[in-house]
């Protein structure tokens, strides 16, 4: 395949940034999208030019590092697919493909296609955990979890924190991410003790990080590589409402 790539190049956070066009030849339709970028980078290095910076790690759809907006869509044209799992057979020979970083105020561009997603880490640090003695694992059946709860928690836990939900949202809202992370723990018995505090803290950290507000139009769900459902956002709203009322009545902010 022969392709024209319109790629966002930006030297650093302060740089204005611009699209630059490249052409790549001999792309196998069996290669992954990232392998195609590797090919481009080899050509750039051979010519003594700066390779295109992009995030990636596992390349098997589980780590959440890869993060490209391809032809305007987070993670490209295939549903339920990370960029690393996207293959060039989804494109046609001769195509022009536009490749951009996630764009949201809380995700500043570090370089080219790489953005800084540490605001997600801050959200997790504020409540996306269970305070429990670690050490040797406890007996598997000491806490019984109903199958349906375990399934719901697993569906939420499938979130890999890639940030596609934010990238696809016209408001740059992180609600789907926060909803998945909160629901994962709030659904399980181990998460009950800190449920209210978790929800309030994670939501306020999300707001402080400068993410926008959810206006329920569902683009996040549509691009999510793990198909996290909007159900979890409704659950987050519900849990947040309950936690706020309890906090108000008890006069505490936790």
């Amino acid at each position, binding site marked *: 395949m022969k392709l024209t790539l319109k790629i966002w190049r930006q030297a650093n956070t302060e740089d204005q940034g611009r699209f630059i066009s490249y052409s790549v030849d001999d792309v196998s339709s069996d290669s992954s999208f990232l392998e195609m970028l590797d090919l481009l980078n080899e050509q750039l290095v051979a010519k003594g030019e700066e390779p295109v910076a992009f995030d990636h790690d596992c390349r098997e759809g589980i780590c959440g590092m890869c993060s490209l907006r391809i032809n305007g869509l987070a993670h490209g044209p295939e549903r339920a697919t990370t960029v690393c799992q996207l293959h060039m057979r989804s494109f046609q020979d001769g195509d022009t493909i536009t490749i951009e970083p996630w764009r949201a*105020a809380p995700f500043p561009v570090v370089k080219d296609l790489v953005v800084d997603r540490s605001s997600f880490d801050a959200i997790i640090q504020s409540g996306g955990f269970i305070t429990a003695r670690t050490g040797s694992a406890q007996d598997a059946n000491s806490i019984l979890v109903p199958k349906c709860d375990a399934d719901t928690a697993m569906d939420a836990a499938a979130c890999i924190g890639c940030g596609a939900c934010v990238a696809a949202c*016209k408001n740059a809202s992180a609600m789907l991410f926060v909803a998945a992370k909160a629901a994962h723990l709030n659904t399980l018995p181990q998460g009950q003790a800190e449920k209210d505090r978790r929800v309030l803290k994670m939501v306020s950290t999300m707001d402080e990080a*400068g993410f926008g507000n959810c206006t329920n139009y569902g683009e996040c769900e549509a691009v999510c590589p793990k198909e996290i459902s909007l159900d979890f956002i*409704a659950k987050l709203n*519900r849990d947040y409402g309950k936690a706020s009322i309890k906090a108000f009545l008890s006069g505490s902010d936790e």
Partner: protein
Amino acid sequence: MAITGLIMVGFVLFHMLGNLQMFQGPDAINTYAHFLKTLPPAVMWGGRLFLLAAAGVHVATAISLTRENCKACPTDPGVKERVQATLSSKTMALSGSILLFFIVFHILHFTTHTIFPVYKTFMTDLDGQQVYDVYSMVIYGFSNAWIATFYIIAMGLLCMHLSHGVSSMFQSLGLRNNYWRKTFDIFAALYGWVIFIGFVSNPAAVLLSEYTSLNIFPVQDVLLRLS
């Protein structure tokens, strides 16, 4: 946002149903209007203030919501495709802003009669009592094609605002799940259309009576009598 929206959603349904009494003739709507105007002042002003407060809080939260969202999204020089968002959901701030303008206009037009003070003089006889003639005011008001068209367009925008908003508010209140989502979406679209058709029926019927051979309302009689 959702709660104030819900209050107005309830209000517009009753307002729309009330308006339909136009089709039952002058006495029906004039009796209804007279009943509303002669409610105990505490009830009438309580209701008015409650609705105004709901609208005020709705607009205030809409402004801060839109502001925050604009701040979160830096200017985007690239391409951005949408997979499933509806037009109504993408244009809530626009439809809302035009509705705000419409609501102010509507109150100055039909409630306070500030725009056309001549409306103040429309009186009629109801069971031997002199009451305000809402029936003639509406027909007279909508006989102006510009105003009728503006009302019709505004109601189209209200239909859009509601077809996203009514489903969205269930999600905001945490009352929606995948099992109910489709039902709420259909309900919201239906609700929007019912409200639209109900409200538009009056200006549309006046225009049809005025400019075609249909004779739903006695437009010419009213115009002759009042001018």
